[in-house]
């Protein structure tokens, strides 16, 4: 395909929003707040999920190690290995990004007219040599790719062209459409030769280094972009508010540990309970799951009205839809009666997730 033809194809879907990756510049970290995440932990930044079959005390964190990002970027995600670990054949250690089916429907994958796509990103590692990953779906279709980091601790710009998959079943609705896995340490059963489509589940490319093998090894990534066509165009920087809204289709938090910060209007029920409804900031991918953290002992939430207050000793979510969710709070004491505003308490969090 000529450059002009490629640009014409890119223009066909609009130059804006050509990047199908959300939060590819790693700016937004709602769940972690920038804190370090480890085995079994939260997303270090929105939309990028760590997974591992083993725990050798590795960590992953937004801006880990205070490395200067590539020009134009302010943030990255950094992985730091724990103790040296030799992976078993079925082990894996991954950072992945899932794209909703709606956002890849125009790729035409699974049909004879499947479009080629190009993945680009900035990456930096203390371990040189071949690294790898895959593009995959949930139905056993996998395309391993590899890339080379020539110099230790130096940012490298990588582009990878992936021919469209004419086989398999690729979701074009709100289910998981496509997932990119960056393999950080993969066992032999989880890798295949780069550059071909496979009917099978793999997480990396044969011959790639294992970051788990070296104590303290580092790997950083930012500027992840996936677009139609064979050319990697410059990274699409979207306005912060736009990117945050895109993230909130999958996850948001109405309370972020700020005491005295009103979070919702509350309807007084009776001496036993009150109810509160939250409007999701955007229509979420599905009816979300609702989690609560920091809810051990003491007063969970406070409501105030004309100087009266009430403390609530427990909270449950009873209804959830893509646009709203509702909770019931059990009375914990105070002088409050009537309706008012609900306030958070330091250390309490509500997490609303419709992740893929």
């Amino acid at each position, binding site marked *: 395909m000529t450059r002009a033809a490629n640009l014409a194809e890119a223009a066909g879907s609009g130059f804006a929003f050509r990047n199908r990756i959300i939060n590819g510049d790693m700016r937004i970290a709602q769940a972690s707040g920038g804190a370090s995440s480890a085995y079994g932990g939260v997303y270090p930044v929105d939309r990028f999920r760590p997974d591992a079959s083993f725990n050798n005390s590795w960590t992953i964190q937004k801006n880990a190690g205070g490395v200067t990002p590539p020009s134009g970027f302010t943030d990255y995600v950094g992985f730091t290995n724990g103790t040296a670990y030799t992976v078993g054949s079925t082990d894996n250690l991954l950072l992945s990004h899932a794209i909703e089916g709606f956002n890849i429907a125009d790729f035409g994958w699974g049909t004879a007219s499947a479009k080629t796509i190009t993945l680009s990103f900035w990456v930096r590692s203390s371990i040189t040599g071949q690294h790898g990953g895959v593009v995959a779906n949930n139905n056993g279709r996998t395309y391993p790719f590899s890339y080379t980091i020539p110099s230790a601790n130096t940012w490298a710009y990588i582009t990878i062209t992936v021919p469209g998959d004419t086989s398999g079943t690729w979701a074009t609705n709100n*289910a998981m459409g496509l997932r990119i896995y960056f393999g950080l340490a993969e066992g032999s059963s989880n890798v295949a030769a780069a550059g071909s489509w496979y009917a099978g589940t793999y997480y990396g490319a044969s011959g790639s280094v294992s970051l788990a093998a070296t104590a303290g090894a580092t790997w950083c990534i930012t500027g992840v972009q996936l677009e139609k066509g064979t050319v990697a165009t410059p990274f699409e920087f979207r306005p912060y508010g736009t990117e945050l809204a895109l993230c909130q289709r999958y996850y948001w938090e109405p309370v972020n540990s700020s005491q005295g910060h009103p979070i919702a209007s509350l309807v007084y029920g009776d001496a036993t309970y009150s109810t509160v409804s939250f409007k999701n900031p955007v229509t979420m991918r599905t009816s979300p*799951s609702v*989690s*609560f953290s920091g809810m051990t002992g003491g007063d969970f939430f406070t409501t105030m009205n004309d100087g009266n207050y009430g403390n609530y000793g427990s909270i*449950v979510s009873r*209804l959830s839809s893509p646009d709203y969710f509702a909770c019931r709070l059990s009375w914990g004491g105070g002088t409050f009666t009537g309706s008012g505003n609900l306030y958070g308490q330091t250390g309490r969090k509500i997490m609303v*997730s419709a992740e893929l």
Partner: protein
Amino acid sequence: MYKIASKFMVERLADYTFIPLTDPANTDYQTFKREVSEGVELQDADGNVMTAKDVKAFLKTLP
């Protein structure tokens, strides 16, 4: 372990998470259905452990 929280939600007890029973596209719901059908404990709204027969009947009512 899970506990039925309401007609529309089930609670995952391990992490205080409430999962909607009305939306098959929710990935936590998909995991709940798979795990409970494989034998993970499900409690009714009063905290009583449901029998395998009752769990099977309950799952049949879900989308």
